[in-house]
């Protein structure tokens, strides 16, 4: 299992979600965050005050997936979020020790599989 953390442009969220839903990746968390990834700063002026906005609004996605889903999920995020300009964001793939579904107490692979889907139906998970 991996935890996929992606930081993307806010205006690309819909496209990323569409790509993920097509893959049947349904469980995810979305936060509004601010970040800086080397993009050109925006200069804004409010009356006499001119400021350089160091931080840009971003969206952070957190998705826990079983190993077979890691590559397709990463691919889907890249496809949905890429514009080719600096500031498209990053994807971090982190090891994930344990997942618990609060409603049922299910653990790990069963917990990251959408409700109603048999977690053992697909191919054997590569270790």
């Amino acid at each position, binding site marked *: 299992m991996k935890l996929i953390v992606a930081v993307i442009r806010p205006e690309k969220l819909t496209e990323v979600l569409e790509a993920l839903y097509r893959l049947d990746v349904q469980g995810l968390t979305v936060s509004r965050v601010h970040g800086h990834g080397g993009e050109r700063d925006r200069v804004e*002026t409010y009356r*006499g005050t001119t*400021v350089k906005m160091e*931080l840009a609004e971003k969206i952070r996605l957190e998705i826990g997936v079983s190993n077979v889903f890691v590559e397709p999920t990463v691919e889907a995020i890249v496809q949905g979020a890429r514009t080719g300009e600096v500031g498209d964001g990053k994807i971090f793939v982190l090891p994930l020790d344990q997942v618990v579904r609060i409603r049922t107490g299910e653990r790990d692979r069963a917990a990251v599989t959408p409700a109603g889907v048999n977690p053992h139906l697909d191919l054997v998970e590569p270790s």
Partner: protein
Amino acid sequence: MNAADTTWMLLATAMVLLMTPALAFFYGGLVRSKNALNTMMMSLISLGFVGMAWAMLGYTLAFGHGSHLLGDLSAFGLRGIGLDPAPGSTIPSLLFAAYQGAFAIITAALISGAVVGRMRFLPYITFITLWSLVVYSPVAHWVWGGGWLARIGAMDFAGGTVVHITAATAALVAALVVGPRKDFARHAVLPHNIPFTILGAGLLWFGWFGFNGGSALAANGQAVLAFVNTLLAPSATLVAWTILDQVRTGKVTAVGAATGIVVGLVAITPAAGFVSPFSAMTIGALAAFPSYFAILYRSRTRLDDSLDVVAAHGFGGTTGALLTGVFAQKAWGAPADGLLFGNPRQLLVQAIAVGSTILFTLALTAALLKLAALLAALKAAPQEEGQGMDVSQHGEEAYTSGDGALLLLSETLPGQEPGLAASQGGAQ
């Protein structure tokens, strides 16, 4: 000069002027937060540019004597417009010019609802400023300046054709020529602040008492009739809209209620001083239907008239203009009776006024926008749209915490080192 009339018209002018910032709130609430300032600025900027265009040229083109098609240049820059009452009026001509100026300003601002979220700001300013001179002023002259529509007996009390049909037709053309937002019909684009929209609708209604009540140009019985009809008609529209919402979706929506109010206001505008209060309620209730279904239909088409200017002002204005020809009553001060009171010809006259206004506006707005497109791109780049029009057009954000903002020193302050700003030339 009559003091009571002048007092009322001073107040009515201020009320009509308030409608433009009210429209900024109405429209501003309906767009995404990244486009809120740009959308509000599209209304606000009309107070400057269209206001000046009106004072310099628009007024004289609309109300100068001229021909039956257009005024003249006799009052260029308001020359000769003074404090004496205009012939046949009891208020100073200068006040009349100001009152009509507030109409020109709001009319041009109405168009913006069709191009929010993608039209570049300077081409927009150029467009509405010229539009107010080449489309609004001539049509105002036809109806109110002694032009040909007045001569054939078209009735438009406060601007159903002059204001709403011209603005909505221009909105249709602008939406088509500028083209849709990149996200249109691909992403859900939702209102970011519906309370703003409700505030805007409320302030518009308040201002509209000056718009319709003031169109009597006096503190008299006709002003009272127009004023009361401006209360009753939107009230009836709101009831009809509520029922339509409830029946169709099972819920009564706030955006629907705000829209219904505006549609009722639009519909009663041409009729306000010419119909009985009961007729006003009928017009208000009937007007809900075409606009309600036009909104439903439009959202299934490729027409990105983003804030439904055509459905609200075009359909509402046309319904009102035609129904004026049905419900007008000499007994209530109209210059002629309508269809229901034995004068079917009036409906035909109203239809001619609507049709000719639409055709004229279509042709001139299209020509104007095509011409403007030759000078500069009308539409922002997709990246600018993605970033939001507030940052890309204005270098400001509507909602910012200031976190992570570095203060730049001004390059121009005397006695200071050139600030960081100098090294940021070319940055957005």
